[in-house]
């Protein structure tokens, strides 16, 4: 093996990859998609929301709820209630920042214009139900019929408070029902409080406690805890690993297929051995992947430091990311390289690559349960089973309860052994496959080649 030749092959491979227009597009497309989603999602949701308009008929057997319902069902009241609810939910989940702006956007997104139509207490229920399904031609769309029961405001002696019956036509949206229920609840509670001369506003004020975000105390610095950050870190690290490996391994396969289909391979093999060629190509693409990873990690670190959140990230995570990347990359790249050497054109590669891709994507799909409960049997088992062990382990390490260090080193040892074994087998397939033209191989053929050489 000549290190100089390997370096030459690696250099060409690297330059060919990074000077390709497709590479630049691929590099920018991930952050671009993320950015677009963040910017566009709220807007898309807002502009598509429709305002629900229609009549709500009320038969108020108490005679005290209907006037209050008229107030709590107005669009303004509904919006105010929504904003309160969303703010409470966001506050509970610890999301801060532009939460206020987002609450506004989301509240605006759900619009409702209900018109309250009071029916006398003596109204015929059966006739009113018919109104729901066969509306008068000139009237607004009937949305619901509410019957407020007699004991809804004042319970019968020794009994508990009553409620209401809600009748709706078929295909009523859950959103309309929920908003109606909220309005009814507000109106009935206000009516109940009024019978005891208690001010509803006062009760609201007395029962609300603004929950405060926690402060993370770390050595000599204290900062507001970013719950979302802790949840996102495992996904980001697992994603970086998957994406980094995929970029390098896939380009490696494509370039090998190209060398084979353009028949330049034989000229190359007259100058370098198959092993030198494979080593050069694997290293060249590794450099490409490392460049991409460095770029993404760099951008991430810059963003964190601009929000003064850099201290939240354990620098050792980045070190382990690099170690795990190298192990995972060598394993997958050698498989992708062998596939590239075995087939005649990209189309034939698809059948062989799909299962490998699925294996690579599996930990990404399992990242949510693994990150939430990093010490379940499944999570621990996954972190020892190659080739997904490194991906599972980085997810666990980035989670809120990292695994013990012996497990990390076991993962590294298992990963290294698997990477060496795979590279060894793949290099044999690579050598045989490079000059095999004709019938596209299947996995059985690949294994036969590995045994043969």
């Amino acid at each position, binding site marked *: 093996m000549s290190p100089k030749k390997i370096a030459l092959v690696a250099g060409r491979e690297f330059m060919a990859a990074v000077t390709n227009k497709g590479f630049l597009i691929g590099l920018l497309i991930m952050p671009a998609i993320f950015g677009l989603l963040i910017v566009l999602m709220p807007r898309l949701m807002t502009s598509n929301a429709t305002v629900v308009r229609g009549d709500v008929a009320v038969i108020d057997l108490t005679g005290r709820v209907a006037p209050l319902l008229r107030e709590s069902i107005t669009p303004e009241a509904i919006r105010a209630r929504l904003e309160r609810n969303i703010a409470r939910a966001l506050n509970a989940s610890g999301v801060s920042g532009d939460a206020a702006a987002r609450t506004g956007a989301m509240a605006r997104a759900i619009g409702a214009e209900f018109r309250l139509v009071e029916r006398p207490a003596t109204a015929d229920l059966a006739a009113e139900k018919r109104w729901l399904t066969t509306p008068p031609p000139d009237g607004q769309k009937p949305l619901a019929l509410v019957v407020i029961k007699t004991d809804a405001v004042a319970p019968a002696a020794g009994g508990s408070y009553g409620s209401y019956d809600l009748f709706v036509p078929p295909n009523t949206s859950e959103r309309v029902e929920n908003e109606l229920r909220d309005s009814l609840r507000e109106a009935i509670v206000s009516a109940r409080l009024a019978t005891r001369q208690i001010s509803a506003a006062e009760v609201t004020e007395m029962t609300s406690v603004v929950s405060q975000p926690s402060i993370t105390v770390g050595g000599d610095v204290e900062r507001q805890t970013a719950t979302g950050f802790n949840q996102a870190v495992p996904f980001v690290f697992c994603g970086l690993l998957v994406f980094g490996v995929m970029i390098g391994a896939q380009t490696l396969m494509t370039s090998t297929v190209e060398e084979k289909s353009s028949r330049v391979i034989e*000229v190359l093999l007259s100058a370098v051995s198959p092993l030198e060629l494979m080593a050069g190509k694997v290293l060249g693409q590794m450099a490409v992947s490392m460049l991409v990873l460095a770029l993404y990690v760099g951008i991430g670190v810059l963003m964190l430091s601009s929000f003064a959140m850099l201290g939240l990230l354990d620098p050792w995570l980045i070190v382990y990311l690099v170690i795990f990347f190298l192990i995972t990359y060598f394993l997958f790249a050698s498989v992708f390289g062998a596939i590239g050497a075995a087939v005649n054109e990209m189309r034939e590669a698809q059948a062989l690559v799909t299962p490998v891709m699925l294996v690579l994507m599996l930990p990404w799909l399992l990242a949510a349960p693994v990150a939430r409960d990093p010490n379940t049997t499944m999570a621990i088992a996954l972190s020892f089973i190659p080739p997904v062990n490194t991906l599972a382990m980085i997810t666990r390490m980035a989670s809120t309860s990292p695994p013990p260090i012996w497990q990390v080193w076991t993962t590294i040892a298992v990963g290294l052994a698997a990477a060496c074994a795979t590279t060894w087998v793949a290099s044999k397939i690579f050598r045989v496959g490079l*000059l095999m033209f004709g019938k596209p191989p299947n996995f059985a053929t690949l294994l036969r080649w590995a045994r043969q050489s």
Partner: protein
Amino acid sequence: MEHAIELRNVRKTFGAHVAVDGVSLAVPRGAVYGVIGPSGAGKTTCIRMIMSILFPDTGSLSVLGRASALEAKDRIGYLPEERGVYRKMRVGAFLTYLAQLKGVSRETADARVPDLLERVGLKGTERTPCDELSKGMLQRVQFVGAVLHEPELLILDEPFSGLDPVSVRLLRDQVQRAHARGATILLSTHIMAYAEEMCDHVFMIHEGRKVLDQPMAGLRRQFDPRRILFEPLRDGADVSGIAAMPDVLQVEPGAGNGYTVTLVEGAEPSLAVARIAALVPPARIEIARLRLEDVFIRIVAGGGGLDEAAAALRSRLQAGAAEEARA
């Protein structure tokens, strides 16, 4: 003397198909050695084994004194039958890359590329992306790739296939130049005329087996049929006088108005030409050149009774040559 290439009883099979069967070969240093035979005879498999791209099932070989070409790759120039380039790379960068892989410094390679490109008629194409060149141009680019590092051994697998006559001449000049520099040339071709012109030694292979391995000079002596091709100036001229000459064995009508005159054993063809010309004024008279194709067919088809096999083989060879001419 140490040989540039030695194959010792080499055999290679692909599944049930025996591609090369017990072939031995010794190419002396400095020779221009022709490997000839029809398509599918086993030439490329032999060359790939010499290059250590394929490995023999049995038998052994040595290249430039090493047990494997892998140990002498940098001293060998190779133009494979399957041509290929990096389509997106520029010609100059591609050639420099190949030369660097062969151990030439970047500076040396950069300096040699423009000159060599000019010699093969591709002046000023250094900055052109490979995919903008025609097939014939790319073939010349690849030839440059094979000689750029000034190898001791130049192995050319069907170097002229698909090239126009001008390009063939340009490449032939470069092969001769490499030979003059001292390089050993191993040239495979199924067009035997090229081998006749260029090689000082031919090695024939047929269905994986060696059928001939001789210097061209000896071949000429051995297979020289002492034939003179003669076409009289006047139509219907009387040629009976020629048949009566003491040197002449027989006179047969040939193509058109021509005749083929066969001389007796030991006759001197140059004297016979002068005598025939003096007897009947010729439009054309020449000593028939040795045709490897005829030698090949004679060897493969044997002495007699194999006319059909010989005709089939001849048509196969001619079909190959016609295909070349079309390309």
